[in-house]
């Protein structure tokens, strides 16, 4: 399972600048009972984007926290600009020119853009904040990043993507030599990612060293010059991005010959008899302000993909199909009979299940055990007066934890202590326990590691083969096209096309999203 760590790329290789601005070597961090990092090296060069790669739990965040002074390390050295030093607080790291932007925007939405940028280091005049100087400074840094944002506007009025860019502006407002971006793109759509990358490139070209963490391989290959791969808290290798083929990267990350995603057998598309009644049929389903009326048919044993950018209406549509929001127009039929879904309970009664894109806010009940989380939907359907008998519950839990390979295999662990991928498996199992006939999956593979992703994709294919109907939403078009028998393309809250998954390519979908020829 363990591969010999590949040697670091030759620093003398063309394109590699002379001296790293940050050099971490032999970093080891032990938490009680476990080595979170073991003898890990990381070098960041000025004017380079360096991607830190690894599955969930590989130690990426721990390494970042060691660099930025959140955690202290048990052994190893950190050299910044040629002098050996470590940081005991994020403030110290920042003073040394190392700034971090985290996955969730950690700013104050109720303050103005200017205030957010200078917060905590406001220019002062005679003891009070110099507002004019603050604004000038904010303007300067915004224009340095070519961001067209009004510095006086309230931060909360901007979309998340802009807030993220403001967070970066704040990070580079100080004398910033190293910028750490931890999953900056996880909630951005393609256009916003492009804007972010433009800013990142501008910073890179001005000589800043950038450490970039992302689950999206496409983005990593697009933006990074160099990669460090971690696995299980150990260094696997450092590579120039151009020298590392994707397949190789994935193998290094998961440490085994991947039952490669590319090799995932496409479940033979199930032909739909022309006279078959769709399991779910929507005509003109819409909600004022959220989704223009949409027609949609989902047949038994089929996987229907919803493709589109963030905000295209794909999430809105799944929520309407589950009764999580109420439709203001249109008619829904389940097995040909008209139904009205005014609450999730009613949808569940029709054997519809829904896994939300926002796992943390709308799925995970963190302080309950894995067992309780698994049984939640089934128990809710039975009602509180009829508790699931202890033994039946244990059997169901054991069966589904094994089937979905939930780790650790401890039903009494609190769900919040599981990794993202395993939480997602538990949430899927929660619904599978209720034996749904239609499964609505909104971004079931977002933010989880590749191994779990492949498992979930295989599961979807298997469920469809067994006759379940699935609606599958994903921002990763490649995944949608590969898994789905039928792809509904949404754009700007309208349905623009419906494609046959078997005969379409990612390019077809991208083309439709981009051109949006409304049909």
């Amino acid at each position, binding site marked *: 399972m363990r591969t010999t760590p590949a040697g670091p790329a030759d620093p003398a290789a063309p394109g590699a600048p002379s001296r790293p601005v940050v050099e971490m070597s032999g970093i080891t961090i032990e*938490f009680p009972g476990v080595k*979170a990092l073991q003898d890990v090296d990381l070098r960041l060069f000025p004017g380079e984007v360096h991607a830190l790669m690894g599955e969930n739990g590989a130690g990426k*965040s721990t390494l970042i926290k060691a660099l930025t002074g959140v955690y202290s390390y048990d052994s190893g050295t950190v050299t910044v600009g040629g002098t050996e030093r470590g940081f005991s607080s994020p403030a110290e790291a920042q003073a040394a020119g190392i700034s971090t932007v985290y996955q969730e925007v950690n700013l104050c939405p109720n303050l103005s853009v200017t205030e957010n940028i200078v917060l905590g280091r406001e220019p002062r005049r005679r003891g009070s904040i110099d507002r004019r100087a603050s604004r000038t400074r904010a303007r300067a840094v915004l224009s340095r990043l070519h961001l067209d944002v009004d510095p006086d506007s309230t931060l909360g009025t901007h979309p998340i993507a802009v807030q993220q860019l403001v967070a970066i502006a704040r990070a580079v407002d100080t004398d910033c030599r190293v910028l750490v971006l931890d999953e900056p793109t996880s909630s951005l759509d393609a256009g916003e990612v492009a804007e972010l990358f433009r800013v990142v490139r501008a910073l890179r070209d001005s000589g800043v060293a950038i450490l970039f963490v992302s689950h999206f391989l496409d983005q990593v290959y697009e933006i990074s010059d160099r990669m460090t791969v971690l696995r299980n808290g150990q260094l696997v290798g450092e590579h120039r991005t151009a020298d590392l083929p994707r397949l190789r990267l994935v193998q290094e990350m998961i440490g085994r010959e991947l039952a490669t995603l590319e090799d995932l057998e496409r479940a033979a598309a199930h032909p739909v008899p022309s006279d078959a009644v769709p399991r779910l049929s929507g005509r003109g389903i819409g909600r004022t302000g959220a989704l223009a009326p949409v027609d949609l048919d989902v047949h038994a044993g089929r996987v229907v993909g919803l493709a589109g950018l963030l905000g295209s209406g794909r999430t809105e549509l799944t929520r309407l199909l589950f009764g999580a929001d109420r439709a203001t127009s249109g008619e829904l039929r389940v097995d040909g009979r008209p139904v009205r879904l005014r609450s999730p309970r009613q949808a569940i009664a029709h054997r519809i299940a829904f896994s939300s894109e926002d796992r943390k806010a709308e799925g995970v009940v963190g302080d309950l055990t894995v067992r309780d989380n698994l049984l939640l939907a089934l128990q809710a359907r039975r009602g509180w*007066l009829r508790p699931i008998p202890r033994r039946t519950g244990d059997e169901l839990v054991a069966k589904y934890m094994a089937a979905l390979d939930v780790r650790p295999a401890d039903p009494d662990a609190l769900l919040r202590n599981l990794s993202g991928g395993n939480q997602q498996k538990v949430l899927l199992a929660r619904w599978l326990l209720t034996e749904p006939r239609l499964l609505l999956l909104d971004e079931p593979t977002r933010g989880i590691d590749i191994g779990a992703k492949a498992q979930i994709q295989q599961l979807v294919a298997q469920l469809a083969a067994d006759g379940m109907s699935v609606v599958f939403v994903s921002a990763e078009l490649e995944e949608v096209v590969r898994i789905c028998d039928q792809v509904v393309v949404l754009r700007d809250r309208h349905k623009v096309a419906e494609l046959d998954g078997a005969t379409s390519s990612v390019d077809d979908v991208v083309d439709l999203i981009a051109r949006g020829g409304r049909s």
Partner: protein
Amino acid sequence: MNRLTRSPLLWPLLALAALLLFNLVVNPGFFAVRIQDGHLFGSLVDVLKNAAPTLLIAIGMTLVIASRGIDLSVGAVVAIAGAIACNSLVSAPDPTSAGAAVVAISTALGVALLLGAWNGLLVSVFGIQPIIATLVLMTAGRGIAMLITDGQIITVDNDTYGWLGGGHLLGIPAQVVVAGLILLTVALLTRRTALGMLLEAVGINPEAARLAGVRSRSIVWTVYVFAALAAAVAGLMISAQVTAADANRAGLFIELDAILAVVIGGTSLAGGRYSLTGTVVGALILQTLTTTVYTVGIPPDMTTLFKALVVIVVFLLQAPRLRAVMARRRRPAPPPLPSGGLPDEAAAVLTGGPALGDDEHTPAHAPAPTASGTTGSGRGALR
């Protein structure tokens, strides 16, 4: 042993034990229980008896708090229940009959049900913040009680009704019996059915619970109704004990004692997991404290000050950050790993389990080796 020291009940139990011991030292007869006229007598019995109303309200409050709510109106409900019962008794054709008592008690409970339904309606249907929604009844409630009693203290003389305040069953004070039965019922009802788990799910993540098909609305509604009913029973006890309804003073500030009891017992005000046992211990601590103040001869007006002192000590002992500091004192260095290999947890990590130092969050049991107070991860920061 390890399980015991980690139990959130440890410190509350120790505090209770310390209080009782202190009383034993000051008053060697404190633990003595004797039987007189077939009834149990003694300081401990008094503690239990006097704790009963607060305990009842605290049980209701525990469930409300578990649902992410709070009920400030229970003190007002205490006053209203007493007022209605006494008013009903004095206006009955035969105020001393058992039938009149039954009618009075039923009327009071019926009204409490409506009041609870009102709170539940505001919170679960209209989505008003619980603290605001119940503040309405808290402020209006005493006014309603005053209206019912016409501003007077109504005294009653009814043996059946008086039993609730001064009677005994098998030698045990009626208050203790009633509170114990209700506690037992609630424990069975929430832990033997799925109600407790569903309630916790609603309290921890309401939206996730709703999307999983949990009837959040009716569950939340029910806990407010139950809290009002429990408060009404407590109100009947209080009024029966003094055989009068005092709209001004009955149950004054009892909602705060109930909330304190719940929190001392380890149930988080943030909602979610709850502990009825903890609430019982919390209520007993508060009552023992009051008794202690009387025993030692401190002016009763200063009781609140002593309550505050004990409460702050218990909270500090429970505070995750303080416990972390003390744990580090006790174990200056983490034990070295066995040379034979990594422990189970580590093995789980290496085989792809949820690793410590995970990318999305740090598990609560893996604090940074030298937490500088800036990690803000895990339970410590959240609770």
